[in-house]
C-alpha cells in the first residue's frame, strides 16, 4: 500500500492555503502542471497525475480536460493505470459525455481479461456509468460471466446485469435463466446479487414475476438456513447471520407474496419464525424485524401474523432508540386505516410520543394521533393535542390546528366542549389557523343558542387579554356585537360574569379599531360590532354615532364605506335600524365541500341593509337571493327583516349567478339545497334503519356511505358494521362516527367504505350488522346487489 507521494504533496499544499484565493492559485498551478504532463506521454507517474486531477475535481474545480487521459489510462496494460483510469471514468465521464463511448471497447476487452481484478474494474465501471448503448453492446458478455465458475466475478456480473436491466428493460428476458440458476449458489455474495437481480426483474415485468413465484420455497429454505444456523464468523453481525441478505430475501418474498394467497401461505411459517427468533437488542436485529413486519403487512398474511407484526411495531414505539420509534410510526401511519383496531391498542404510546424531542417523531406522532381519534377517546386525546399545540414547533402548528378542528367537529361530545376547544386553539395558535375557521366558528356559536352568554363572556375576557390573534379578535368582536346585551346584563349561568359598563365594552372595541395589530378585516368586524351595539345598549348611542362618523373619512375604503352607510342608517333610515341590526338567525350548516365562491359579483349596490347583513356573515359575495329581498324591502314594506332567515338559508345553498336568476328568485325564495346522493334503505328491524348512498370517485373507485339510525324508544349500543365484497374488489372501511345509536333518532351513525373495482366485476356487498338492543345481542346480514347512484352499465 504505497501512497502516491506526488499526490499527497499536492494535497498538503492545497490544504495549507489559508484563503480561498490562495487555494485557487495553488490549484491553477497544479492543473497547469497536470495538463503539461498529460501531453507528455511518459509512462511513469501517469496514474499519479490523474489521481491529482481527481482530487481537484472533488474540491469542486473543473476537470473535464482529464477525460481523454482516463480513456488512455484505461487502455494501458498496467493495472495501476487501469485502476485510476476506471476511477476517473466513473467520476468524470457519464453517459452524456462523448468520451464515454470510447471506453466501450476497452471495457469489452477487459471483461475477458485473464485477471479477475481487471475484469472487476470493467464490471464496476459498466455498472456505474454504462449508457443504454453500452449496455446493449455488452449484455451477452455479462450473461456469459454470470455462468462463470468464479464467484468473485459472478456476484459482480449479477449487479452489472441489474444495471443493464434498469437501463434497457427488454434485456431482462436475457438474464432470467441465469438468475434462476444463481439461486442455488452457496456463496453469499453471489446469492445476494442473484436476489437483487430477481427483484429487479420481477419489479419490471409482471409475467416474469409470475414465473419467479415458483422460487418461493427455495427462498424460504435459504432464509431458514440463515435464521436457524449457528454462528458463522464470515457473515455474522452482532448475532444476526448476514442481515443484508436476510433483508433482501424478505423484500423479494414481499413482492412475490403480494396479492397471491398461495405464495403468502408458503412463507407464513418462515415469517413467524423470523419475527420471534430475531434478537431485537441491536439495530441489526431490528432492521431484519422491520423488514419482516413490512412484508407481513403487505402480503396476504393470516390475522395472527398481522397482529404479531403490529405488536412488534408497538414494541418499537417503546424502544429507547429514536430511529426505531420513527420508523415504527411511519409504518403505523401506513396501516392505520386498514388495521385501525390493532393500531388503536398502541394509542397511549403514540400520544406520548408527541412529547418527544425530535421534530420528525413529533410530526409522525401528530398525524397518527389525529388518525386515531375516535368518539371514545376524544376527550383525552384532545387534552394531549392541546398541550402539544402550545409547545409544538411552528411548522407543525397549522397542520395541528386544522387536525384538531376536524377531530372536534366529528367527535365533539358536547357543544360547550367544542366551543371551548376552538377558543383554546385560537388563543394558542390563532395566527396559524385557516381562513374559514372564523365563519365556521361564528356559525357554531350562533347555532348553540343556550351558550351565547357563556361564549360572549369568554370571548370578552380573551379580547381584554390579547388582541394580536386576528381570528380570535374577529370572532370576539362579532360576538360582542351580537350578544353585547347579554354581556351587559352581568349574569351568566355557565361562567363567572363580568361587571362591565357600556363604556368598557365600547372601549374594548375601540382599542381593536385603533390598534396597529388589527388587520383591515378585523377593523371591519369591530366597526360593525360597534354599530350593532347601538340597538343593544341604552346610554351611549351618541358615542357610537361619533365613532361611526369619524370613520366616514377613513383612508381604508372598506371601513369608509361601512361608516358612511352606518351614518346613513342613523340619519335617514333610523326607523329601520332596530330591524336591520336584529339578532342573527340560526345559520344552516353547509355540507362539506360546498362553497359560495362561484357567485357572480354583487350587482345592486345601494342597499345598506344588504351590506350590513352581508358583513355579518363575512362570507364571500352573497348569492343574488339577497338582492331580490332587498328590492322587496325598499319597495316599502316596513316588516322586520323577514328575508334574513332565507338570507341565512340562501347563503348556504348552491351559488347562483346574478342576472338571470334574479328574475327567478323574485318569485319565491326557495333555497335550493344540493341534491343529495340518493339513499336506499337496506335494513330495517327493531327500529334500526341502515341506508346506503354512493358516490363515484373515479373510473374504478367508489365511496359508499352507510348511515344508521334508531327510531325505537331504547338506546342501541355496541353498534358495529362489517362488510365483505367479491374477491377482486378492494375494500377499506373508515372508522365509524360513533358506536351507539341513541333512541328516537337523536343521532345518526355514519361510516364510509372505500371500494376499488379495477376489474369492473359485478359489485355486490354483504353487510353484517351487530348491536345490542334492550340487553340482547342482535346480529344480521344483508346483501346489497345494486348500488344507488351507479349507472346500469356497472362501474
Amino acid at each position, binding site marked *: 500500500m504505497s*501512497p502516491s507521494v506526488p*499526490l499527497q504533496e499536492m*494535497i498538503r499544499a492545497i490544504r495549507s492555503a489559508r484563503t480561498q484565493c490562495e487555494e485557487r492559485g495553488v490549484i491553477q498551478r497544479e492543473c497547469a502542471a497536470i495538463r503539461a504532463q498529460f501531453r507528455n506521454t511518459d509512462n511513469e507517474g501517469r496514474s499519479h497525475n490523474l*489521481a491529482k486531477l*481527481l*482530487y481537484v475535481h*472533488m474540491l*469542486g474545480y473543473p476537470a473535464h480536460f482529464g477525460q481523454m487521459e482516463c480513456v488512455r489510462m484505461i487502455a494501458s496494460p*498496467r*493495472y*495501476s493505470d487501469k*485502476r*485510476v483510469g476506471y*476511477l476517473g471514468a466513473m467520476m468524470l465521464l*457519464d*453517459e*452524456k459525455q462523448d468520451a464515454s463511448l470510447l471506453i466501450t471497447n476497452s471495457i469489452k476487452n477487459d471483461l475477458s481479461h*485473464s*485477471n*479477475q*481484478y481487471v475484469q*472487476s474494474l470493467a*464490471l*464496476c465501471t459498466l*455498472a*456505474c*456509468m454504462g*449508457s443504454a448503448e453500452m449496455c446493449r453492446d455488452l449484455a451477452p458478455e455479462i450473461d456469459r460471466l454470470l455462468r462463470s465458475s468464479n*464467484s*468473485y466475478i459472478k*456476484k*459482480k456480473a449479477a*449487479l*452489472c446485469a*441489474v444495471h443493464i436491466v434498469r437501463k434497457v428493460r427488454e434485456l431482462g428476458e436475457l438474464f432470467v435463466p441465469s438468475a434462476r440458476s444463481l439461486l442455488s449458489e452457496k456463496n*453469499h*455474495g453471489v446469492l*445476494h*446479487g442473484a436476489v*437483487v437481480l430477481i427483484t429487479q426483474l420481477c419489479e419490471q415485468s409482471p409475467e416474469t414475476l409470475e414465473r419467479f413465484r415458483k422460487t418461493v420455497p427455495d427462498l424460504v429454505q435459504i432464509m431458514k438456513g440463515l435464521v436457524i444456523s449457528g454462528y458463522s464468523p464470515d*457473515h455474522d*453481525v452482532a448475532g444476526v447471520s448476514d*442481515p*443484508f*441478505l436476510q*433483508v433482501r430475501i424478505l423484500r423479494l418474498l414481499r413482492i412475490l407474496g403480494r396479492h397471491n394467497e398461495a405464495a403468502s401461505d408458503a412463507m407464513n411459517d418462515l415469517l413467524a419464525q423470523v419475527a420471534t427468533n430475531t434478537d431485537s437488542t441491536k*439495530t*441489526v436485529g*431490528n*432492521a431484519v424485524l422491520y*423488514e419482516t413486519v*413490512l412484508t407481513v403487512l403487505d402480503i396476504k398474511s393470516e390475522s395472527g401474523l398481522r397482529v404479531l407484526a403490529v405488536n412488534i411495531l408497538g414494541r418499537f414505539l417503546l424502544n429507547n432508540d*429514536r*430511529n426505531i*420509534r420513527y*420508523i415504527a410510526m411511519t409504518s403505523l401511519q401506513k396501516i392505520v386505516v386498514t388495521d385501525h383496531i390493532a393500531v388503536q391498542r398502541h394509542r397511549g404510546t403514540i400520544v406520548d410520543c408527541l412529547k418527544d*424531542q*425530535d421534530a*420528525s*417523531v413529533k410530526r409522525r406522532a401528530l398525524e397518527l394521533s389525529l388518525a386515531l381519534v375516535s368518539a371514545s377517546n376524544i376527550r383525552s386525546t384532545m387534552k394531549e393535542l392541546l398541550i402539544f399545540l402550545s409547545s409544538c414547533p411552528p411548522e407543525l402548528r397549522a397542520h395541528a390546528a386544522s387536525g384538531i378542528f376536524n377531530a372536534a367537529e366529528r367527535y365533539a361530545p358536547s357543544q360547550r366542549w367544542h366551543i371551548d376547544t376552538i377558543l383554546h386553539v385560537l388563543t394558542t395558535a390563532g395566527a396559524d389557523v385557516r381562513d374559514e375557521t372564523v365563519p365556521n366558528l361564528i356559525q357554531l356559536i350562533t347555532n348553540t343558542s343556550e351558550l351565547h352568554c357563556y361564549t360572549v363572556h369568554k370571548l370578552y375576557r380573551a379580547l381584554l387579554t390579547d388582541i394580536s390573534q386576528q381570528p380570535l379578535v374577529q370572532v370576539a368582536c362579532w360576538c360582542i356585537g351580537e350578544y353585547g346585551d347579554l354581556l351587559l346584563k352581568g349574569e351568566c349561568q355557565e361562567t363567572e360574569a363580568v361587571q362591565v359598563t357600556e363604556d368598557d365594552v365600547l372601549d374594548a372595541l375601540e382599542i381593536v379599531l385603533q390598534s396597529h395589530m388589527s388587520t383591515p378585516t378585523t377593523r371591519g368586524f369591530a366597526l360593525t360590532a360597534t354599530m350593532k351595539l347601538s340597538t343593544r345598549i341604552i346610554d351611549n348611542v351618541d358615542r357610537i354615532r361619533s365613532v361611526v362618523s369619524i370613520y366616514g373619512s377613513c383612508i381604508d375604503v372598506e371601513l369608509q364605506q361601512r361608516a358612511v352607510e352606518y351614518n346613513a342608517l342613523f340619519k335617514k333610515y333610523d326607523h329601520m335600524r332596530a330591524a336591520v341590526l336584529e339578532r342573527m338567525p340560526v345559520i344552516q350548516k353547509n355540507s362539506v365541500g360546498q362553497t359560495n365562491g362561484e357567485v357572480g359579483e354583487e350587482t345592486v349596490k345601494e342597499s345598506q341593509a344588504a351590506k350590513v347583513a352581508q358583513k355579518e356573515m363575512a362570507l364571500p359575495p352573497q348569492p343574488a337571493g339577497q338582492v331580490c329581498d332587498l328590492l322587496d324591502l325598499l319597495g316599502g314594506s316596513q316588516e322586520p327583516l323577514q328575508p334574513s332567515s332565507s338570507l341565512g338559508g340562501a347563503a348556504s345553498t348552491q351559488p347562483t349567478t346574478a342576472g338571470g336568476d334574479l328574475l327567478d328568485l323574485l318569485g319565491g325564495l326557495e333555497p335550493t339545497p344540493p341534491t343529495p346522493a340518493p339513499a336506499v334503505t337496506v335494513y330495517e328491524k327493531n327500529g334500526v334503519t341502515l341506508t346506503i348512498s354512493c358516490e363515484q370517485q373515479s373510473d374504478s373507485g367508489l365511496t359508499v356511505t352507510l348511515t344508521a339510525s334508531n327510531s325505537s324508544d331504547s338506546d342501541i349500543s355496541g353498534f358495529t358494521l362489517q362488510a365483505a365484497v367479491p374477491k377482486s374488489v378492494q375494500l377499506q372501511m373508515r372508522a365509524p362516527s360513533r358506536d351507539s345509536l341513541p333512541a328516537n333518532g337523536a343521532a345518526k351513525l355514519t361510516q364510509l367504505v372505500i371500494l376499488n373495482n379495477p376489474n369492473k366485476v359485478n359489485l355486490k356487498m354483504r353487510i353484517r350488522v351487530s348491536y345490542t338492543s334492550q340487553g340482547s345481542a342482535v346480529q344480521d346480514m344483508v346483501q346489497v346487489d345494486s348500488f344507488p347512484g351507479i349507472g346500469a352499465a356497472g362501474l
Partner: protein
Amino acid sequence: MMRFMLLFSRQGRLRLQKWFTAISEREKKKIIREMTTMVLARPPRTCNFLRWKDLKIVYKRYASLYFCLGVEDEENELLALEIIHRYVELLDKYFGNVCELDIIFNFEKAYFILDEFLMGGEIQETSKQIVNRAIESSDMLQEDDHSEWYDVELFG
C-alpha cells in the same frame, strides 16, 4: 437502490462523493449543497432519517465526518445505517484506526474499498473478510506492476 453516498466534514467540505445514477454536474453540485446544509443543521439528539424530495436520507456522524446516504423509498432505513457502519469498519480495518486525514490523503483508496463493497447502488459483498482480501490482492497487484503481473492470481 441507493442513489448516492456523500462524506463531508463538519465544515461542509466534501471528502468523497459516489453517484449511482447518471446526473449532470450541476445537479450533483446542487445536491451536495443541499445535503450538507440539511444534515449539518440537524440538532444533536434527533433521528438519523430525513425525507428529501422523493428520497430518504440516512446520515450518521463518525468523529468529524458525516456519512450521508440517499436511498429510494423502498429501502430499509435501519439497514442503510448498517451499510454506513459496515463501510466505516472496512475503512478502519484497511487504514488501522481510520481518521478523516486518512480519507483525505488516500481518497482513491477509499473509493476502491467502496467499489468492492457497493456496486450499482446495491450491496456487492456481505462478508467483511472477502472485501478486505480483495483489496489487499488488488493492492499487491498494483505493487507488482513493475514486474510481471499477468500471473498474479491470489485469492479467488
